[in-house]
């Protein structure tokens, strides 16, 4: 049994973190559950403020039963865990976390015996000229506005990029907006229809999920929403806010007038905490990213540190729930607690079975590997500090930078407030293209504390409290 000196800590109250907490509680432990949000649920099952009125069916559609099951699990755990919402983990070292409590703006240290990191994901962004204009958001951001605030990002909205979220957000916007004078101006997918056809064999291994995706596309077309595949984004136009998106089908330039745009190219894992904890990383070709290594149960290279959910590789919400439970069972077993071997095997099997579908998704919505070749020198890559593709290329050419941290030191890309969350993927693509090196050899931006900005005046208070 896990004693009080070994109180486990979970970071992130999304599908993975909540299932991990539930599993630890079921085995007699009392975990600390730390989450940046005011209410747990994560991003895809994000909960609006308590007094909002829409039904789970309206908010989560086909995923309503999954979302409510997860939320009620968290609510039911209240008396059995130390739940710390509104709390941002901004540093991790030496067996303790530094945590900023948003509402009181105070920081504290949280020691841990073992740690499960379920840090989730954000949109994977490939900038397009004009992407810093007001009215341009990520696809996830467009969804948060609707789900969490009952707002759309505009009245005439273009949704662009690729990945399952593109069609889900388009469907949600078209549906919610229908009675409110909001419409989806166009869905612009960089994937080609041929990609989607080629992906069908893998996708058919999860027919129910595939059917949902096809339903959204069919619904959009049936409701007169223009869906274009095989597009290459050229620019977002506007002076002080977006008023059009310009794209090409390879031959002709097209303009889609709009007052807002959501875009993204699937998701990227949020790995900075795993990095600060010293986890070993490896290149993961399917994810086109360096990811923290973990075994099939979620153990990292650092004893006592476990990973679960999209923060360790994008596998989706169902996989996150299984991986959260699996990581918690590994943590328990590693500390001598007897766990159900049949269940651990079943969870690993479920996770493995998702792989053909996951690879199919990558085939259906491929990363646009020619993005860097088409990015103009004037394109702003770093939106924090306004650093352009041309500046990055000049650094590679003139200073010989051929590794991401060298590029960061010389140009400040990835050094701004977002710490490379928004620009890191794009900067690596530009660097690989400029140097002619394979993308997996240009390295990755190292995580640095604080991983998100904290008020400077807090630090002395934190010292005094320690």
């Amino acid at each position: 049994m896990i004693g009080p000196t070994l109180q486990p800590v979970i970071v992130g109250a999304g599908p993975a973190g909540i299932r991990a907490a539930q599993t630890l509680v079921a085995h007699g432990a009392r975990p600390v559950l730390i989450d940046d949000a005011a209410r747990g649920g994560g991003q895809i099952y994000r909960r609006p403020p308590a007094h909002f009125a829409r039904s789970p069916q309206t908010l989560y559609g086909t995923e309503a039963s999954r979302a409510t099951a997860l939320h009620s699990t968290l609510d039911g755990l209240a008396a059995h865990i130390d739940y710390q919402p509104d709390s941002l983990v901004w540093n991790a070292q030496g067996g303790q976390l530094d945590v900023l409590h948003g509402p009181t703006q105070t920081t504290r240290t949280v020691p841990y015996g073992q740690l499960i990191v379920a840090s989730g994901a954000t949109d994977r962004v490939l900038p397009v000229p004009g992407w810093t204009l007001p009215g341009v958001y990520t696809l996830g951001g467009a969804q948060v506005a609707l789900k969490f605030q009952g707002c759309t990002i505009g009245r005439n909205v273009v949704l662009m990029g690729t990945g399952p979220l593109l069609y889900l957000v388009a469907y949600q916007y078209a549906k919610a907006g229908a009675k409110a004078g909001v419409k989806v101006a166009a869905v612009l997918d960089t994937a080609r229809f041929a990609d989607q056809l080629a992906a069908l064999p893998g996708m058919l291994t999860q027919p129910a999920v595939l059917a949902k995706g096809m339903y959204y596309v069919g619904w959009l077309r049936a409701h007169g929403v223009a869906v274009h595949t095989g597009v290459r984004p050229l620019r977002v136009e506007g002076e002080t806010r977006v008023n059009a998106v310009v794209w090409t089908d390879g031959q002709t330039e097209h303009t889609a007038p709009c007052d807002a745009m959501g875009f993204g190219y699937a998701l990227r894992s949020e790995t900075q905490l795993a990095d600060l904890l010293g986890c070993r990383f490896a290149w993961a070709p399917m994810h086109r990213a360096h990811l923290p290594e973990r075994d099939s149960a979620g153990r990292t290279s650092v004893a006592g540190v476990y990973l679960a959910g999209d923060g360790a590789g994008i596998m989706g919400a169902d996989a996150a729930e299984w991986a959260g439970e699996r990581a918690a069972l590994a943590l328990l077993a590693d500390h001598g607690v007897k766990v159900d071997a049949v269940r651990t095997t079943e969870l690993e099997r479920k996770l493995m079975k998702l792989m053909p579908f996951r690879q199919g998704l990558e085939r259906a919505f491929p990363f646009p590997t020619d993005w860097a070749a088409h990015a103009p020198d004037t394109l702003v890559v770093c939106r924090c500090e306004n650093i352009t593709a041309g500046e990055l290329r000049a650094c590679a050419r003139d200073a010989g930078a051929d590794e991401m941290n060298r590029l960061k030191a010389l140009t400040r890309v990835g050094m701004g407030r977002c710490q490379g969350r928004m620009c890191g993927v794009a900067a690596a693509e530009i660097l690989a293209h400029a140097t002619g090196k394979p993308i997996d050899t240009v390295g990755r931006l190292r995580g640095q504390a604080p991983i998100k900005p904290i008020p400077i005046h807090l630090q002395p208070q934190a010292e005094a409290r320690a």
Partner: protein
Amino acid sequence: MSSSQPLLHRVAEKDRTPVPFVLDGEPAAALEGDTVLTAILIHRAQLRRNEFSHEPRAGFCLMGACQDCWVQTATGERLRSCATFIQAGMQLTTGEPA
């Protein structure tokens, strides 16, 4: 479309208690449960100006990752507006004259 017209558009959850606050020195109203970001962008098309390009910004990821939605209060305090709920009497600025 001009920058004085709002970016965000309410399509649901409109029956909430109004919350009075001050935007660039002028009285404004939000709804209980609005984030500071929503409260501002339901009236305006920007939250701040970027320190490097000096161009208007209105947030980007809405989930606490991009740090592009920091808003300054009239007293110089800085808020991550996508993750801070509006409170009555808040005095917020967007870097533009009212």
